[in-house]
């Protein structure tokens, strides 16, 4: 008798496992991923299963112990959420950036273990709040970019102790900088010391970090060389006529200017403050 019971148990367990396996197969065919964690299953569609549609969600119903489900940016709608009604072990549910609206929220009312619900970027409004009030264990509700109001959020937080509703930043308050705004021009000017001999330019010494604004007011293309700490020359760039270049540099650094054929024209030595270096030659 005992043997029979254990055999029956085994068979039923095996059937369950096969059913599980079929459901998992179906989920994976829809692009989903199933992770077995200590206390249940975590299922994700948000990376490789974004084409998930309502009907494909039915496979989930057959699985017991689903604790997390990520449907972010999938193609599910309100109708798909009916398949979630029985997932009472669900703790984490991502519905952000889907077509879910107030109508779908009604299917979530029995998910009594839910502690994380993400509705950001959906069309839910304050009308969904009465349904959400049933979720007594909810700790985090994300409603950025929805029509849930500040008052609605506060009321829900009052109704569910321990809940925090995250409404996110009001993007209208973020100022976008104007790209056409003129850049600040340093007031100090560096002295141009003409020379035809590169050896006249002293080697650079270290000092404070400053910025130099090179302006080529000459009619020809010029080259910009940094004179190194042991007199080596390092090409930093070329400047067309009327070209400007913001250059990071240091106090006591020397910059040698040559024409496009590397014939020296002169040099600048940086001071302690940001400065403009104008090439007129």
């Amino acid at each position, binding site marked *: 008798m005992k043997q029979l019971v254990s055999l029956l148990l085994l068979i039923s367990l095996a059937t369950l*496992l096969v059913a*599980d*396996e079929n459901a*998992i*197969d179906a989920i994976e065919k829809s692009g989903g*991923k*199933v*992770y*077995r*964690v*200590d*206390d249940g299953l975590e299922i994700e569609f948000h*990376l*490789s299963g974004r084409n998930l549609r309502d009907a494909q969600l039915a496979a989930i119903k057959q699985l017991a112990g689903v604790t997390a489900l990520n449907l972010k940016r999938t193609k599910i709608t309100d109708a798909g959420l009916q398949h979630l009604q029985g997932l009472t072990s669900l703790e984490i549910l*991502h519905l*952000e950036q889907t077509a879910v609206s107030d109508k779908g929220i009604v299917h979530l009312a029995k998910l009594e273990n839910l502690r*994380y619900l*993400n509705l*950001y970027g959906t069309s839910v409004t304050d009308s969904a709040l009465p349904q959400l009030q049933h979720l007594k264990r909810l700790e*985090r509700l*994300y409603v*950025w970019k929805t029509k849930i109001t500040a008052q609605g959020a506060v009321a829900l937080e009052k109704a569910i102790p321990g809940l925090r509703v*995250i*409404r*996110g*930043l009001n*993007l*209208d308050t*973020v*100022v*976008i*900088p104007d790209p056409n705004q003129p850049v600040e021009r340093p007031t100090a000017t560096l002295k141009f010391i003409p020379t035809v001999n590169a050896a006249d330019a002293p080697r650079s010494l*270290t000092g*404070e*970090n400053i*910025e130099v604004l090179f302006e080529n007011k000459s009619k020809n293309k010029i080259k910009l060389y940094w004179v190194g700490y042991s007199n080596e020359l390092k090409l930093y760039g070329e400047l067309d006529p009327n070209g400007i270049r913001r250059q*990071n540099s*240091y106090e006591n650094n020397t910059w040698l200017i040559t024409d496009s054929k590397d014939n020296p024209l002169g040099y600048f030595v940086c001071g302690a403050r940001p400065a403009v270096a104008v090439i007129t030659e």
Partner: protein
Amino acid sequence: MLQLQAQATSVRRHAKRCIVIYCWGGISHMESWDPKPEALADLRGEFSAIQTATPGIRYCEHIPLMAQHSGKLAIVRSIYHRQGGHQQGMYTSMTGHDPPGGLKAKNRDNWPSLAAMISRFQDPRGGTPNAIRLPYNMYDNGTLMAGEYGGWLGSEYDPVLMKTPSGKSFQGVSRYTNRELDLTLQLDKSRILQRQRLQAQLERQVGSATDYDRLDRFRKMAADMLLGSAVREAYDLETENPRIRAMYGDHIGGQSMLLARRLTEAGVPVVQVCAGAGDLAGGGGDNWDTHRGHFSKMKDRLLPVFDRSVSALLTDLEQRGLLEETLVVALTDFGRTPKINNNGGRDHYPAVYSMALAGGGIRGGQVYGSSDSNGAHPERDACTPADFHATVLTAMGINIHTQLRDALDRPYEICSGQPLPLF
């Protein structure tokens, strides 16, 4: 098959993604997370402390935005190690292990970086690298630094270096190698497909050796990404809401944080960001190695970018509901000397410093441990980079006692520290 799934993920993961922010050069603890306004004038410096959103916790006055996020942050103020050089300090912070003598960046005996180690335990997906670094390598006066690579895990765990496609650069020296991944390349899709077909033909004739497989994995991944994966989509910052971009700031420091958010959102398990110029260049430029002109550089150049970009990241992760599953950690080489030097700077100081964590199951609004009144030594709950690593790995659901083997089959226990009680 069910069993296979069970084996693949047998531990409960708190955090699913990790963003590692690295303050290369050594951010001063006293001018960031651990101000000492009551210390003597030659120690406390020019800045004052401000009250954060968490009663009783104060930060430096020049990270006011971060102060509003204190409820999300756990600050460790009692971390220390014994390495006074940048290379050694960075290696220790990044790997959680003391450096051997004669460190070389590409040495496969080195310990893997935190990012590489986390990536080792992730489930790779098509077209998604396991770990990405932004926006350039770390150098010290032109020498490539050890500590941010895969080490003995092997080259397949070297985090992929990616260039942040926009943002005003940090002043100073940052070295690009032209080998960074740049997904804005305008490659014709049909040409990539054609090359793949050609290669498949060749491989059928040649067969494939195991040595070749690792290289192949990277090449395949690069091709997948170029052909339009979620990663390539994430890389295109032009598609981001302009107001969100503005929130991060139009600096490469901000845009790299934004890219980190987008990449982790697209399924990359771990992204590391170098938050400053890439080459220390003797302390010149916008890196945290502030031996001279410390206060002006911190106030005018470094802290504003740091404050704005990291706060934007926390705001953005939070409002998308991603902060719970995304662990954000801020690491650095070491702290800086409590006593201000003759050049108005602070020098290297590993005897006590601070690091920060947020999200991923970490309980915010707390400070763990403390330094003494001069910010010179741990006063309470002294801990090490190994403990910090144990904390991060645990938060990622990785068993810190796991044994892994290198290419020569030598066993290593991945972490020698104990997790800090920050959850």
